[in-house]
């Protein structure tokens, strides 16, 4: 008797517990609460939580940076075409042939807590960032900072820097001194007050578990009250987001997969697409087994990139430019590409033979043994790797394909234990980043062994060329060298897409947002009037 009742009681008790938990979860104080309605603009992306939207707390990726840029303004911003434009700095003057800058701040800029933004905050930011390294830009090039008045500041540089405005000042968020001054470990400062910025929107709630942010417009924004009362940034898989947009619950799907574009259009949604300029690249182990550039060129000729576009991207990509920079980039030069490496197996064979490989019954031999190349990549490029392996094997080169988890991949790259690897990386943003991406020794870089020093010299020269025309000419030389030397072979440049409702009009910037983020969500989309083009 008692047992049966006990069991029922037990099950009932469990059920009660579950109800209690639901109520408890529903009552979480930090849960983002917003009434979906006319005044909230809902933006979705599939990735999880990006961390608190504060410069040291957000996830170290483009999306985290972009979201944080709605809350924190920099001195310099971008206009609706991506050009350098005034932001917290109303105007600036280049002095001393580019070795110093006079910067005049806005009179009416305020932090979200009402405290005015002053030159002291800017000076504080530079000194704070020199002792608390910021991952997206560095203040190392700044020699001195002098506060002249509440709205005027004088900077001197250690050397001329072509990217000082378009990279350093644009990338560095200005921090409020009264909030950050006594934070010794800013990466552990994760209260909502850490997100006190001067940007057009302020963070009013953040639900880490659900990856959901609610931003409120900053009515006192110096450029006029922003366009939308609230922005909701939420995590949602694109397929669901399309359905939710049909039901008027979502306004922007920021990461619409290309194979859903047709479907989304059919559902009556607006779609904007653009080349992502994050090409997929076949990086050669140019410091090791493939130090002979004729071999690298031969392999390049032996790969049918048109087929890659068709199979891997189902047509939603273009064949990438081989000089690193891609069409759309303001620094791209058409005439600088002597080689476009159009698919040509015969040319590949000639080049292999020049380098001492012999073909034996369609199988390439080196030193009497069949050639076997190790191709490594991560899961994201597994399909591309499979197709490339197929193509190279048809060419007579044996391929040992390994699709590795990130950690294992990093270890293999660091130890040089590979011949070919597939990865994608940014060809956007200020060209200053090229040095790290081509010659750096981190695992994302080409790790090109620049024995003649040509590429290094060209990249140094462009960094000092303050004149845009001169800089572009030097970068044209870089693109020629890159295509000739082939540290990596640019394969495909996939398109990106964003779906949007009629309440908003997102657009892609030709060279990406700020540090080169390939999303159609620059700050200017959400402002009342896009800022005017700079001087």
């Amino acid at each position, binding site marked *: 008797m008692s047992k049966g009742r006990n069991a029922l009681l037990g099950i009932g008790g469990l059920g009660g517990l579950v109800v209690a938990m639901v109520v408890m979860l529903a009552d979480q104080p930090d849960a983002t609460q917003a009434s979906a309605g006319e005044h909230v603009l809902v933006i979705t992306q599939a990735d999880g939580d990006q961390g608190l939207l504060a410069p040291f707390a957000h996830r170290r990726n483009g999306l985290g940076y972009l979201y944080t840029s709605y809350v924190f303004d920099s001195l310099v911003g971008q206009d609706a075409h991506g050009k350098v434009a005034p932001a917290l700095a109303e105007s600036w003057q280049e002095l001393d042939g580019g070795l110093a800058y006079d910067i005049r701040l806005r009179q009416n800029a305020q932090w979200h807590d009402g405290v005015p933004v002053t030159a002291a905050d800017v000076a504080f930011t530079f000194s704070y960032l020199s002792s608390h390294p910021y991952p997206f830009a560095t203040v190392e090039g700044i020699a001195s900072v002098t506060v002249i008045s509440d709205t005027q500041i004088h900077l001197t540089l250690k050397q001329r820097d072509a990217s000082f405005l378009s990279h350093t000042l644009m990338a560095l968020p200005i921090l409020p001194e009264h909030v950050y001054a006594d934070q010794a470990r800013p990466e552990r400062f994760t209260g909502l007050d850490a997100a006190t910025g001067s940007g057009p929107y302020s963070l009013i709630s953040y639900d880490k578990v659900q990856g959901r942010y609610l931003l409120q417009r900053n009515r006192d924004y110096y450029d006029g009250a922003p366009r939308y009362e609230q922005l909701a940034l939420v995590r949602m898989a694109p397929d669901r987001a399309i359905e939710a947009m049909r039901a008027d619950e979502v306004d922007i799907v920021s990461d619409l997969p290309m194979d859903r574009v047709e479907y989304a259009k059919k559902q009556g949604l607006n779609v904007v697409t653009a080349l992502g300029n994050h090409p997929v690249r076949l990086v050669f182990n140019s410091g090791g087994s493939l130090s002979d550039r004729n071999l690298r060129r031969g392999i390049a000729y032996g790969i049918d990139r048109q087929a890659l576009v068709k*199979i891997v991207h*189902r047509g939603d990509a273009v064949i990438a430019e081989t000089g690193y920079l891609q069409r759309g980039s303001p620094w791209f030069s058409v005439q600088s590409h002597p080689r476009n490496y159009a698919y040509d197996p015969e040319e590949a064979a000639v080049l292999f033979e020049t380098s001492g490989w012999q073909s034996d019954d369609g199988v390439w031999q080196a030193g009497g043994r069949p050639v076997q190349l190790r191709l490594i990549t991560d899961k994201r490029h597994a399909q591309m790797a*499979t197709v490339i392996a*197929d193509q190279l094997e048809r060419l007579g080169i044996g391929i040992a394909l390994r699709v590795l988890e990130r950690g*294992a991949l990093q270890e293999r790259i660091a130890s040089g234990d590979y011949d070919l690897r597939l990865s994608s990386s940014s060809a956007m943003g200020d060209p200053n980043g090229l040095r790290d991406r081509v010659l750096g020794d981190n695992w994302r870089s080409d790790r090109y062994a620049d024995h003649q020093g040509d590429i290094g010299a060209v990249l140094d020269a462009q960094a000092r060329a303050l004149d845009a025309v001169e800089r572009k000419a030097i970068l044209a030389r870089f693109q020629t060298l890159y295509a000739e030397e082939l540290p990596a072979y640019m394969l495909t440049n996939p398109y990106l897409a964003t779906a949007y409702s009629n309440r908003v009009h997102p657009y892609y910037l030709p060279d990406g947002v700020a540090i080169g983020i390939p999303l159609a969500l620059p700050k200017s989309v959400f402002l009342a009037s896009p800022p005017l083009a700079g001087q």
Partner: protein
Amino acid sequence: MAFRASEAGHRKGDWRWWAALIALLSAVTFAGLFTSEPYRTSTDVLMPPSTQHWLGTNAVGQDVWTGLLLAAPNTVVIAFTSAFLALAIAVFFAMASAVGVPLVRAGILRTVDMFQTIPAILFLLLVAAWVQPGMLGIVLIIGLSAWQDDVRVIRAAVLRESTRENVQYVRHQGGSWLYCAIHHLIPAVWPLLVSLYLQATRHAVMKTAGLAFLGLTDPRLLTWGGMMQGAMDHLYGDAWRWLLVPPAVCLAMFLYLVLSLGKIAERQSMARSSVGP
């Protein structure tokens, strides 16, 4: 397999199942081993089933039917081998704890307790992320993470059998425990072992599929679970019909067969133990 004539009255049904299983497994495995179709990428991506591609093609234009065949031997071999490994470890520990000195017995049983309380998934996730196992790796980690549940059961059966006269007699005559184990104990608990083996096989299939589904196995190792993972991107739209359903059905059929066989084996082992002394 020296299968003892069973005392249970289900012999006819048994044979039907055995025949069905063996026929199916060998057909599929052999087809997989000797299929001449290369599993090549092509520009025909995501094609629905047609006369040219019986089960359509996947996102890189590989033929799904060929993939199913190629995945069959991998899935089947991993399941049976890792189950064998797990059972071998379990039998070893069960024997050792049944006949060993008290210290050994306590040590083994406490270890078993410990392993039984750790969710095996934690171990699997950590190790799999570390090694991205290929075929051998999967067999090892699944074998090593699945033995603990069987030790107690086998030990109980061994203890029961070791009190029988034949074993006692051999021991009196100076026969070693090893001799007893091979000639008397293992044959006596054989039906139980078969039933446990099939159970372990089922679990191994599920675990392998799960690891492949999480993308933690070597991506070149084609398995049905891995094919299902590839289909996850295509739930919205039509392609799941030919990308998800075929490997899922194969997996379910294989598991169903093993489960049914396991039931028969269990019935036999119960029947056997019920006619004990």
